[in-house]
């Protein structure tokens, strides 16, 4: 987490029920406050900023109430705080590329939404990094926007659960926030029996043992067919309530989701793998290797790979897949 992101998170502090009464005015006030914090972190303006374009800049954060009682409220708010300059906006159109990855911590299942979409037919925005590069003024102009998302409008469950949410803008991701959702009583269910994903090879856990974590190691960046592209992952997360059990025995399985994010590709390829893990102090931890080709979801071209496991998100890990 960089200082920008920290400033964003620190600034966006909303108490209790105020989360459920956020209007444009409140959002604007927050936006200005965060903007001021960010501006304070910005280096001094160059004498002539219009002479040269700055490097792309972006920082992303999200915020959500820690408790969301849907029996009393009709929204499940999520704020996405995005700071970027014009160079970045040219490079990656956030309206097209912004994602929210949401993990149901009870089940470990992940879904992605395009939070800036509406229930309407959108006008084609054109490809990122197309057309003339912005001039230096535009490239250096920064924006701090806070988008308020009602997750209930995106088909999220109204059942009692816990969600871990993070925003992803192609090659940048935000912090992860968790929301305890109190809603309709979730039907009791048993942990499903499942098999570990074929070709997932369990490995000794090789991550920190005192915190939740997720990490991937890639053999490189360039991937091409016919060549092994073995991922090495280590995950340690709180055990989902309904973590699948291994059909073969008492072993636990942890759903780990790989997100393949490509710039301007509206679809997000996802591959869930079930990784054999061990229980340890209320956590599930395990290492694994997995050849990327078995994910069956590796799109062509430049891709940012994220790993989502429980409340942990790792990435991006750039991959260049040349078919």
């Amino acid at each position: 987490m960089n200082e920008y992101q920290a400033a964003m998170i620190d600034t966006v502090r909303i108490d209790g029920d105020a989360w459920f009464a956020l209007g444009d005015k409140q959002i604007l006030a927050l936006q200005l406050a965060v903007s001021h914090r960010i501006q304070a972190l910005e280096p001094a303006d160059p004498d002539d900023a219009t002479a040269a374009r700055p490097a792309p800049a972006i920082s992303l954060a999200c915020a959500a109430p820690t408790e969301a009682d849907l029996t009393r409220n009709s929204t499940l708010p999520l704020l996405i705080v995005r700071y970027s300059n014009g160079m970045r906006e040219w490079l990656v159109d956030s309206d097209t590329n912004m994602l929210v990855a949401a993990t149901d911590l009870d089940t470990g299942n992940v879904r992605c939404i395009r939070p800036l979409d509406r229930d309407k037919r959108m006008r084609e925005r054109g490809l990122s990094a197309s057309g003339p590069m912005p001039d230096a003024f535009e490239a250096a102009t920064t924006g701090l926007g806070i988008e308020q998302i009602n997750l209930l409008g995106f088909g999220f469950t109204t059942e009692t659960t816990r969600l871990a949410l993070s925003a992803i803008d192609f090659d940048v991701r935000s912090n992860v926030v968790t929301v305890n959702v109190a809603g309709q009583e979730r039907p009791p269910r048993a942990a499903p029996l499942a098999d570990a994903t074929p070709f997932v090879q369990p490995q000794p856990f090789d991550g920190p043992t005192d915190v939740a974590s997720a990490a991937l190691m890639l053999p490189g960046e360039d991937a091409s067919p016919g060549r092994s592209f073995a991922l090495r992952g280590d995950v340690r997360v709180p055990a989902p309530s309904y973590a699948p059990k291994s059909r073969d025995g008492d072993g636990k399985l942890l759903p780990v989701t790989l997100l393949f994010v490509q710039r301007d590709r509206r679809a997000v390829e996802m591959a869930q793998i079930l990784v054999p893990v061990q229980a340890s102090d209320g956590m599930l931890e395990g290492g694994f290797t997995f050849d990327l080709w078995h994910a069956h979801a590796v799109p062509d071209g430049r891709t940012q790979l994220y790993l989502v496991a429980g409340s942990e998100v790792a990435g991006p890990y750039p991959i260049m897949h040349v078919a």
Partner: protein
Amino acid sequence: MSDTSSDSSGSPGETVKPCKYKGKKVRAEVVTPSIVVKDAYVWFHDKIRPERNQIGMFTLKAAWTGDDLNYKGRGKFTADNHRVEFFSDSRCKKPIDPFKDVSYSFSSLKTGVKIYYKGRRRGDTELTLTLDPAKDDRITVEGPATNSVRARPANVITPKIELEYVVALLDRKPHAGAKDSNNKDAPEIPPTPTYMLVSVEQTRTEPAECQFAGTAEFTGYSTNLDLFQNMKCSKPAANLDALPAAGLTGTDKIKLWARGKKVSTAAFKLKLTLKGTEDVSQRFADPVTEDFNVSELKMTLNWNDQGKIAALQADPDQAAPGDYSLDKQLKTYHDDLVGLVIPDQITMNKKQKAGVGRFLHCQSADKSFSRARLVVNKLEAAQWPAETDDHMVTLEDGSDSGAIAVFKDADGTDPPDPMTVGDLKKKPVIVWVEGTTDSDTLCDSRLFLQLYRPERDLPRRRKRNADWARFTVVTIESVKVRYKPDPNKPEAWGVDPKRFYINFKDDPDGREVTLRARLTKNIPGVPLLFMLAPSPDNMKAANWGVDLPDRDIKTVTVASAHTAPSGTTLGGSTVSETPVDAKFVWKWNEISDELKHKDKNDRKYLVHKSKKTKSGKTVAFADMKVTLSRFGGDVFTALAYINEDPHLAKYVEGHTDAGGSAEPAKNLGARKPRPLGDAPSDPEVIEVWRKFWYQRVAVEGFDTKAGFTHGDLADAIAAYEEVVVVLDRTVADHDIDAATLNGMSPQAVYPRYMVIPNAATGSGDALVLSNSNKAQFFPSGAAPTKTPLRVPIAVCDAQWDPDGNTATKNTPFAAKAKFADVPTDDSGGTALAIGVNMGKDTCDPPLQGGDLFASGNYLVKEKIAGTSTTLAAVALASTDVFIAYQQRAVLGQVFVKWPAAVEDEFYLDGVAVANGGTGCTPASIGTSVTVNEAGVTAAQVTITAQNGGAVTAVTVANRGRYQSPQPALLTGANGLQLTPTWKPVVKQIKFTDLTVQGAKDFLGECQNGNLLAVYDPAEAADFTDTVIHECGHAFGQAPEGTPPNPPSSTHDSIPAHPNTKDLGKGNHCWFEAGTQKTSSAWVMTSATVANGGAGYDPGDVNEDEEVIGGNSETTAEIIITSVSGDAVDGVAIYDPGEYTTKPANPVAITTNNVTGAGLTIDVVWTEKEMDTSMPAANTPCVMYDSGPQPTGLHKYCSVCTPYLLAQDMSKFK
């Protein structure tokens, strides 16, 4: 025997023979013989009980007249033949032989000698009594006397039984016990009885006295037979113990009709015995007996074993191991059907055979219908005497109506082989019965067994109905969809040929079709089965437009997924053969039955849903509800068959034997149930269609597509036609008049230039629909019942929705030179302003109401003589932010004015003394002098030299600040005049916290069943794309596909759409879309110092240098922004360049116009799209999530199509 006596003295019969002396006076004696016959004849029979021969008697006499002269002669008795025998005693113990000397004395004769006689042979016998001549001639001896007697043979009476057949058929009473059956009121039909003639034969009938007057007793039958007086067997035979002579002796004899009531295991004897007193003239023959049998002819009729048939199963939804393709599944199913053996027909019991009857469908020209198996049972030889072996046994049609025919085989055309009793004693015979003409009523057709013997003495009749069975021959005349239109609802059937619209009721109710099968006759109770036979093209491109995605569907998003050859080792694992797209494959066996057509109680069953016919006004009918599939484009033939044609349950339309055989058992399409339609030869089909309507929202005063016509939607109509949906138009528009439009709040009419990019001022108004006002455009309340699935379409020029505030923008400092004169309004006014892209659409007034401006400040940075100062932030006024509609590059661009308060200013850079003035003393050296010319702030100079009271040199102490026109001469006290050198104050403006109210524009939507569509003449195709797209959403397209791939929203059992992802706000299809590019280049998007080099000095700042290396169209350049020591420590991008091959980091830099060398930089290169248009190969589906897509399909893609076909369109989502 006669009791008439005769006295003869001559010939028999004469009482006195005249004496020849009669009349003379001489007294003499006349002796006269006579034979007085008391019994002129006697009855005799020489063989039959001769002891009962009658004894006749006559008396030999002689008498005298005159004087008694004492005649001493004797009388001799003679006879002329031996026809009778004579006896002297009444007991006939003492025979007399008249051919020997038999004489009697006169004295005996005078008293009379009685002679007895019996018949011996038929005929008369002359009796003669001859007196001896008298020795005294006075004695006249007359005579001889003659007479005669007759021997009459007795009447021999012989009983007689004559038989038509030596057997009578057992009355099997087939109808017995069938009183609760289909034909409970039908009469029993007994077999034709065998007649027998009962009589007596008499050897003579004259004289009457000898005729048989007794009776006869008929016995021996009672155990086995019922006897009747008539052939109809309505009059039981009577008086069989005393059959009257009249009948027995009559010409017609007594005719008895015998019907078997109990089968005889061996011949029994019929006996006729004469009864009564046998007269002497009669002789009763012994009783007569005849061997007779009661024999059974039996046939066994079979019908289908409905219980077993109901249990037959063939799973149409089974995946073959390793191959889940539809073709394979269908083949497996069809093979199973071929191999499925219809159980042998089973025996109908007696009640069933006669009472319930066997249904047969009247045979068709193509021989589609089956025959009933019938067995003529093997005969019990003991019941059938050998003489019956040549009797023919035939099966005859005894139908009251209808007709049936019998064949040798189940399928052939040969009649059965002739059958004789002899044959049937050896083995049973199996024949097959076919309906050839419809029965008029239930069980009205009948087949019976008949016995017929070759011609012999007695006339013979065919013995019908030895056994019989009832049939009902029916013809399913027609199968039709029974649909009764409701005038208040849309018609699902009958409007368009063949099409059945399944979405006018909730699914699956809307798919229910009532089929009505009608018979040709009014016959209730016929079990009919109803079938929906899928077209062989279902699930194929021919009917669906695409094939069922049962394998290797084409997807863009996963097309690149790795498909390494089987066995390839990757990452230590072996690649399986599972296709990578398998999870998206529609495995037919896994698709829920809920979506498939339903004409059986379980799809695995062989037989279909059944219902019995009931009586109609003219013909019987049965209605059955079946359910069409939910797959638009499916085509079904509705068929019906009777339950006795279970083989037709196997019917598969279009199926042919792979081996080319026409054999029905292998060719499931060879024999066909009665299809839908008026004539079997012209079957009708039911096509699964869906339909909905649009209603035009007509807005007065707008010449946009609000006035669109049906033809304008031709592409949309065609696109839906391709996915088997009719998009039709409601009759009435929903009109919005001008008054209503103008009264809307918030407003719906904006100048076009405000919302249409590049629209000119004065180009008129635009209709702008948004969340704020759209409800006012749509009809309220429920859709008309006639068009329940109605989509009002409001067409607008722009669809904008309020979208909160924009991001807060902070610009870099920009000099005034970056600002330009920008028109502020239509009046020609301009302002010096700079554009800022706010990232959201903007218009003024904003859709939310209020001001466009939400917040903003500006900071001024001044640079005077190399020293920069940033001033305190100043709030912008709302008027400082405006939209220059004609100038903006994007809809999100606003313009911010150069603050009026920030004026051009100059500072005193240097002065030269023009006039030193007076009064300056050495003490004045070092003093400051304020120049008098007014400025924002006054300049001051410090006197640094004087000469003679005149200032000769000054330095600038305070540069002052002057606005234009700045003074050309500065004056100070004592006449001091200075020539100033001015330099402008470098002022730059930075806007901070700049925020405006934003909006977002869309191309359309469909919410709550109301559709908005933007019409842009330049993107006309997108209008129909939007209509298609939004209607698609209205029906739940595109379906969900959230990893880990839960079922799609189309149905739980259908795999997720491979090209859609649930990204929260309406799934979309990324078919053939993506980021394919025709060309791209690498551009520099970040540059940082890798090695600062050496020898640089501050003068090198702002020098631009080129990147070295790589292949470029345009070379990238950087600017040196700072130097520390002699090394560069800051660079910025000046030109990002365009590289086809990017140079590797660290990148070398040129050294033009700089003092140092060795600078290298690390560059972040980013791929830049060189062609912003969608490449030609990029043909996204109409469900792609944005538009316009000029190169798009303008219709549903091949991946979406099956989802559309399977979608429940009975309601909007």
